[in-house]
Structure formats: structure tokens, C-alpha cells
């Protein structure tokens, strides 16, 4: 499918591919990659970490996003990141580009704070052994409290 402004593609760095794969595969933690991507974008935005994916890999398109959580949050991120300019609200292509940069920063944060210690040969060890659920939940809770401090 060709890249269109109506249905842009979400990209991540190739180096995060295995993490997305393990956390979103089968009956793993996230039902869809969109949910992990949105979480990463929210984390990246909250921390002000915006960086372009390297060695890009497309993982889903705009229409795969959950219309309530995914679309709303990524739109809000783009709006805030570009001086709260309302014109961006309908520009899916720009929203997605901005989201990709923040998702990259968010995943880097998760990697530095958690995943890095649990990688082997470039692969994330099995989630069952890791208690990923509660480690991630703890990180999310910390960030939730951090945002309410500002």
C-alpha cells in the first residue's frame, strides 16, 4: 500500500522491532501494536524526548488506531508539540510524524529504565519471567504522578 496523507504509516526504529513483537504477539500484553505505540508516544511527549526513528520499519497505519484512545491521544500530543496550533488537528500525516518521533523517545525511556537489563542476543526475554505487566504499570504510575506535579 502506498503511503498516503489520509492513512499514514507509523514507523519505529528497527532496533525496537523485537520488543514490539514480544509484547504484542498472540496473547501477550498488548492487544495491538497501536496500544504500545500510543503509550510510548505519550511517555516520550511527557518527558520531552522527541527523536526520529533510525532504520525505519512500518508497523501499522492510521486506520488501525483505536478511534477513541489512539487517535485522541496522538492528536493531543501533536497539538501540544506544535504550539497548540489548531490547524494540526486534521492533518493526520503531521500527527503521525510527530507521534513517531515521540514514540521513539518513549521506547528509549522504557528501554533505559527497564528492558535493557532483560535483553539477550537482541531479543527481549519472555514476558512471563519478567513480570513485565507490573514493571510497566509501575513506570506508568510514576509518570502519571510526575505529570500531576506540573
Amino acid at each position, binding site marked *: 500500500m502506498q503511503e498516503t496523507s489520509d492513512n499514514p504509516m507509523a514507523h519505529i526504529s528497527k532496533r525496537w522491532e523485537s520488543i514490539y*513483537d514480544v509484547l504484542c504477539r498472540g*496473547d501477550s500484553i498488548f492487544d495491538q501494536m497501536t496500544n504500545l505505540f500510543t503509550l510510548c508516544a*505519550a511517555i516520550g511527549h511527557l518527558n520531552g524526548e522527541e527523536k526520529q526513528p533510525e532504520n525505519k520499519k512500518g508497523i501499522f497505519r492510521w486506520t488501525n488506531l483505536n478511534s477513541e*484512545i489512539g487517535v485522541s491521544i496522538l492528536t*493531543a500530543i501533536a497539538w501540544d508539540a506544535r504550539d497548540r496550533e*489548531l490547524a494540526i488537528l486534521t492533518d493526520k500525516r503531521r500527527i503521525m510524524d510527530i507521534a513517531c518521533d515521540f514514540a521513539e523517545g518513549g521506547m528509549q525511556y522504557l528501554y533505559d529504565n527497564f528492558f535493557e537489563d532483560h535483553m539477550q542476543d537482541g531479543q527481549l526475554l519472555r514476558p512471563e519471567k519478567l513480570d513485565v505487566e*507490573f514493571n510497566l504499570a509501575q513506570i506508568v504510575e510514576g509518570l*502519571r504522578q510526575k505529570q500531576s506535579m506540573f
Partner: protein
Amino acid sequence: MILHNIELVDFRQFKGRQAIDCATGSPHNVSVIYGENGRGKTGIFRALMFCLYGDRSLSQDELSGEQKKEGLSLINEVTLKENIGSQVEAQVAISFSHQRKNFRIVRRVDGLMKTDGTIIQNPGGRVELQQTDENGNTQPVETDLEKITGQIQEILNSRLRDYFLFDGERIERLTRNTRERREEVRRGIRALLDLDALELANAGLKSLISQIEKEIGHKSTGELQRVYTHIDALNTKIDDLENAQELGTQELKRLEHKIYEISEMVSENEDTAAKERKRQELIKNSQDLKVEKDALKKEMVGYLNKSAQLVASQLIEQLREELEFRRHKGELPPSIRKEFVEKLLEQERCICGTSLGHDHQQERECLQEFLVKHYTPGLGSESLDLLLSLNRLSSANEGLANQFNRLLVKNKKLRDEIADLESKIKLLSDELKEGGTSVDDLIQERSRLEDDKRTLEREMDRQADEIARAQDDREDWLKRTNVLEKQQSQVDSLVARRDLTKETLAELKAIYDRFANEAKERLAEKSTEIFTRLADEGTQKDIKKISIDESYMLDVLNWTGQRRLGEISAGQRQIVSLSFIMALIQVAGNLEVALFMDTPFGRLSGVHRDHLLDTIPKMASQWILLATDTEFTEVEANALRQTNAWGKIYELVKEGEGITQIVEREVHQFTPKRKSIF
């Protein structure tokens, strides 16, 4: 299958000829076999499995070398000693009825004891089956092993039999969220539906695909051939790993049982019994907490999928306020469509008919100003949808944060409790190791087995990882083949055949899944119905239904549909498992089958025991209880008497080393050794 009589001759610890007449038919369909630990309750089960299926050992026996091939020594050792150098025969005969026909099956095994004490047991055995039809016509005795095996399988499928004899205290394992337990539930459903034929077809198609792929590989050249060779190697690797996993699962089961057996033996030693009982209690508590923690994890997964909104809650609020402000100003959505005003300007005519040409420059400017003032880029009808979504997210945020917090607090509490229990278990284990008692060897052996089990579990996890990676790898390579295959016309017809087979396989899998899902739904519904009869009032208030999820995990849901397995007690989980087994019997068309239960009441509260005693006799065709003196007390005996279903009671009495006598007692006069569990 309804059991009428079990007759044992010099079988295991039952010396000479001994028999058990089972209570059959309504209303007296309950038999109790009462005995302390080590009196031979497992021996009776062993006799049943030997006679019906020719099993010379049970899955839980740890056998090695020659024993593995030949099985356990089944002949009574006292009788062998009395007849050193001569052949001795052990025999089990079972009379049973099935679908209005009567059967008597007899299986024998012989052997001798040499002067040096070695026992030689004949590897072969003789079996005979006689059938009498409903009119009383008796058919000739059948002695063909193959025919007898086939007939018994038809009556009670050997894979279903594990559901009808079980240890009551350990049956709650069905509710544990482990690979083995999910596999066990899956096996029950598969055997119930007799899905083997579909699985065979499935395997056949897979093998056909593999053959065609090999052929394509041979006929292809260069890159495609290299890709196929690689995929073929990955297929072999995945098959090998999956086989290793299967073997590992069986080995784990054996180790678990052996550890359990040794623990039982350790408990019998007075010096260490108290510590060991404490240790076992702590291990059970720790396992229960781990199950609870697993259920908590599953619940957290649901919230993690929405967790982005927690991290972005302030942002959601800010954009929501901005859009609400715009809506308040009438910009969202604008009362007049932008396209309409633009069209008026383009046609140079106002809605009132006034021309907007050069003569009416003022009106034209008015409309242009209106456009600039009232239409903000980015705000349109879709922004209203965005606002609605933001409003919903905003009102859901507080609830989500509370749930998140609740689970985190609970998880921390559980983690601390588990750590505390584990340190206590370690302390007790160390004390038991240093005790200098006669059970030291057993304890050391158990530690070794526990180490083996942990090593095996780690190895199986590693294999599972490797399987997942190889499958992903194969997926990537398959994608490459799709591209390369299109470039090679000579393999087109083979590819077409392969694709067709793959489609058939996918269809077959869909049919299989549909059947399995329907069965799961029926079973969940029936399990819930039975659960409401077995559970006490408090439990029923907490639990709305039993569910069987896509990974064959048994779970319970509360009134709001939340998973609550982690929050119910071990006794309640036992009730959930029993409800599932009774549902299996009923969904299979009210299977006429004897239900054997070893230690049926160990973990159950008084009300649950009463419900079980009242309900099971009405639901099962026949109920045979193998109960210890500590759980079958006067309270249970009186409750069972009141059902009017209790027909037989036998006591297993130890008469000497290696000899247990089966003694029949009067149901109306029998007084258990203990008054109550307290």
C-alpha cells in the same frame, strides 16, 4: 461404565482373594473406601488400571531401567516369599455394566521369587472378557488382546479416565494458569469431542505441505532453493523442539508426583512431621498466592492497554478544554458550512439573491471577513467527534487511575507475602536437611528432584523462546518465498497445489476451532450451573460465572465480568474444578461413569462438604470415595447417611508388613475414628 465388583487375588498388598462390591444404581450409588495413608487406596486404583487397560505402572511412578519396560511388581510379595522358586499368579477381575450390557474382565500376571529375593515377573499377561447382553445371553469368552483393548477403549476412552479418578486436594490444579493445566483442560475437551480425526487430518495436511515444499525445493534453483532449504531446516528444528517440550511436560508431571510422594513419606516420620506439615502448608499458601498474582497480572493487562491515557491525562484535559471553549464560541461545529459560504462567493450571489459582483463589493468583503473570523483551520465536524472522545477519556481517567493503583498496591502486598513465605520455606527446608533424622535421605532426594524440576522448567522456557523465535524467523523466510516463487514459473503448479493444501488446512483449523469453542461455551455454561449448586451462599454472591478462555484457562468472573480467580480460596477453586468435571460428564451426554475421588474433602469448608455430599450422588451415576480418617469423620458420615445414597463402606486394615485386608463394614453402624475435622 458402572462398577459392580472388583476382585483382587494376590495383587500388590492385597494377599489372597479379596473383593469390593460397589454400590450401584439409585438410590444407593455411593461407596466409601476408608483408610489411613499408606493402606492401599492407590493399590485399588492400580488394580483398576491394570485390569481395564493393562497398565503395569501409573504415570506418577518413578521407574528406571528394566522396571520402565516391565512395570512395577504387581504380585503380592508375601505370597511370593511363601512360594520361593514357584510360579505365583496375581489376578484382578472387574465386573461392570455399560449400556445395559454386563461385562466381566479378568487380567492375570505371573512371576516368581528366586532364592536371592529377585522377583521375575512375566512380561506377558492373560486377559479375558465376557459379555452378557440385556436378555441374559452370554457370549463366548474373548481372549484376543487387541479386540479386548478396542472394546474397553470404546466403553471408557483412556484419555478421559484421568477425569474420573483424582485426588480431591489436588484437583484444584485445573484452575492454575500454567501450560500443563491448560493442556489438561484442552485434553479433556478434545477427548470429549473426539476431535482426533480432525487432528489426524490436520497433521496429514501439514505433512503433505512439507512434502510439496521439499519437491518445490528440489525443482527450484538458486535463491528459492536456498530459502526452501532454510525453511525446511526451521521446520525440523521447530518439530524437534515441540517434541522435546512434550517430553518435558511428561517429565515435569512425573517429577511433581515424585516430590509429592516423598513429601508424604517425610510427613510420616514423627520427628519431622510437624515441620514438614508446616513446610507443605507454606508451599501451598505460596502457590495459592502465586496463582492469585497471575490472575492479578491478567487483570492488569486489560488496564495496560489503556495506560497511554493515564500518561497523557493532563494533555487530554487541556485539549478538551480548548475544544470546549471553541464550541462555546460557536466555532465547533460552525453553524454555517464553510463550503456553502465559499460557493456563494464563487457564484457571486448571496442567499438573499443580492449579486456579489463589482457593484456589491461591501457585501462581498463582509462574507470574506466572515470566513476568516468564523472558520479556524483544523476545526470542523470531525473535531466534534474528537471532543466527544476526549470527554469520554476524561471522565474515565479517574476510575482507570484508581483501578491501576488498586492492582499495584495489591501486587506489592502479594509480592511481599510470597517473599516472606519463601524465606520461611527455605528456613524450614534447611532445618529439615540438618535434622539428622532417618528421613534425611528422602529430604535430600526431594531437594534434588526440586532442583531437577527447576532446571527442566528453565530448559522448557528456553525451548519455548527458541520455538517462538524460529516461528518468527520462518514467517520472514516464507514472506521471501512468496516473492521468489512468483519469479519461477516452473514451480507454479506445485505452488498452486501447496497453496490449495494450505487453504484446506486453514479451513480445517477453523472448523476445529469452531467445534472446540462451542464445546468450551457449553462447558462453561454447565460448569456455572453446577457451581451454583455446589458453592456456598457467600461464594455465589461473589461469582457470577465460570469461564474457559481462549487459552483453555478456567476462570471465574464476578458480577461485573471481572476475572476473580486470584481472589478465591483453594477450597473454592476445588469447587470450580469439580464443577468443570461434572460439566464434562453432563455435556458428554450424561456419561454413565464411575467417579472415583481420593481425599475428596481435604480443603473444603463444612458447607461445601455438605453440598458435595448432597449433590454429587444425584449427578454422577456412581460415586466411589477413597477417604482418610482425618477427612471422613462422623460429621461427613452422618451427612452422607442422610442422602440415602450411601450403599457400601469398606475399611482398609493393615494386617502385617505388606498385607492389607479389605474389610466390609455396615453403613448404618460404621463409626469413623474421628468426630469432626476440628
